[in-house]
């Protein structure tokens, strides 16, 4: 591994200053992706900036009016064991708690999962269907971006040089809202998603029709993929096996998978429909509960 400097700033301001310095700087949250990448020379670093002492990046709050705020350096274990998160955002937990086994959970962060920008990232489809927002700070000030716009390619994000992801916010769930994320892996743990699917639905008060819906897929395109046509199709339609199957078909049609070591494109297309259907079914169950 190439040598680098290590910094552990305790304010966002200092962090931005360090990021803006010469050469390559890499923010370190959980490090579960970064360290292997540094070790294998896949990411250059002159400075590693540890984010774990920056208050803004480590905040985890829930407010019924404003929703959930997840600092970018909050570990998945903390997020997934937070009572408010468990109660109000089980769909977010679905995505975050399958990132690695428990050792990884204690270190890995949702912010890191976003910034690593893997097409197969587990937390991102769930955040997309929750209409989560990325909060970004940088030399030019703060800005926000919908989660679905944050990843722009495998390993590439919309962050400009010197910018950092501060947090992800998730709006408070509407009444009769339910969401679910699931993925397919050949084992039962310690795998990268062959395909992941997230669905969020808002049902009419009687639970029989969709008011709104969002569907997102992982590992079937260069970035986690929002499938607007699936959600648009469901809005206003009854909750039936047929409408769910049609939404699943639309998601499958939107998938643009490739063959790789983890699965063939054909298998991924097949799974896109199966998992979308299952994600919708479970999201409906949750919305009705």
């Amino acid at each position, binding site marked *: *591994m190439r040598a*680098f400097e290590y910094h552990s700033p305790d304010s966002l301001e200092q962090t931005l200053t360090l990021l803006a310095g010469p050469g390559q700087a890499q923010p370190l949250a959980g490090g*579960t992706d970064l*360290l292997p990448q540094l*070790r294998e020379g896949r990411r250059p670093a002159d400075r590693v900036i*540890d984010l774990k002492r920056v208050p803004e990046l480590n905040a985890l709050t829930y407010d019924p009016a404003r929703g959930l705020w997840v600092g970018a350096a909050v570990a998945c274990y903390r997020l997934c064991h937070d009572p408010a998160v468990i109660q109000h955002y089980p769909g977010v937990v679905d995505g975050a708690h399958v990132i690695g086994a*428990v050792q990884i959970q204690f*270190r890995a962060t949702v912010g890191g999962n976003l910034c690593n920008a893997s097409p197969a990232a587990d937390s991102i489809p769930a955040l997309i269907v929750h209409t989560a927002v990325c909060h970004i700070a940088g030399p030019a000030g703060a800005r926000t971006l919908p989660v679905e716009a944050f990843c722009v390619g495998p390993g590439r994000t919309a962050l400009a040089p010197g910018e950092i992801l501060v947090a992800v916010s998730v709006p408070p769930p509407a009444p009769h809202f339910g969401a679910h994320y699931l993925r397919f892996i050949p084992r039962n*743990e310690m795998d990268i998603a062959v395909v992941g699917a997230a669905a969020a639905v808002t049902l009419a008060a009687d639970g029989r029709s969709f008011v709104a819906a969002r569907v997102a897929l992982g590992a079937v395109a260069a970035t986690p993929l929002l499938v607007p046509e699936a959600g648009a199709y469901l809005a206003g339609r009854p909750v039936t096996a047929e409408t769910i199957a049609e939404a699943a078909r639309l998601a499958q049609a939107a998938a643009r998978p490739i063959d790789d070591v983890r699965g063939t494109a054909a298998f991924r297309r097949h799974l896109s429909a199966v998992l979308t259907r299952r994600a919708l079914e479970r999201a409906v169950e949750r919305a009705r509960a």
Partner: protein
Amino acid sequence: MSAMTHVQTTLNGEAVEFLCEPRQSLLEVLRETLGLTGAKEGCNNGNCGACNVLIDGALVNACLVLAVEVQGRTLTTIEGIAPPGGLHPLQRQFLEHAALQCGFCTPGFIVAAKALLDRTPRPSELEVRQWLAGNLCRCTGYDRIVRAVLAAAEEAQT
């Protein structure tokens, strides 16, 4: 060699100081600098759990932590699990249940299982399997390991 950083930590109950390069992992420093070789390198990639240690009670792969990150933290390694003059119930039950063959993954399993029992004193078989899913064992098929952890939980209750 780049500049060395001075790190102070509490390791297995004792104050410890060491010098390290920023690029050195906690695993490398434990094994090469501090001479604690109980944590093993199986993959150096966070996929096998052989290097498990506890940082402030949280279970982590020491290969995925920079040594400089543990400044001011409290570390527990396999060498610090047993009470003075004895064995931890997990260690005893691993022996009783023949829960090891080659023994290379064993420290990682015991450290992980301790982290589980510290939080969930009476886990179900499924909870044990979920908690240990980041630890690879190639010798046993896991049966005896899971039984040993359940037995240790039982022992701690009685």
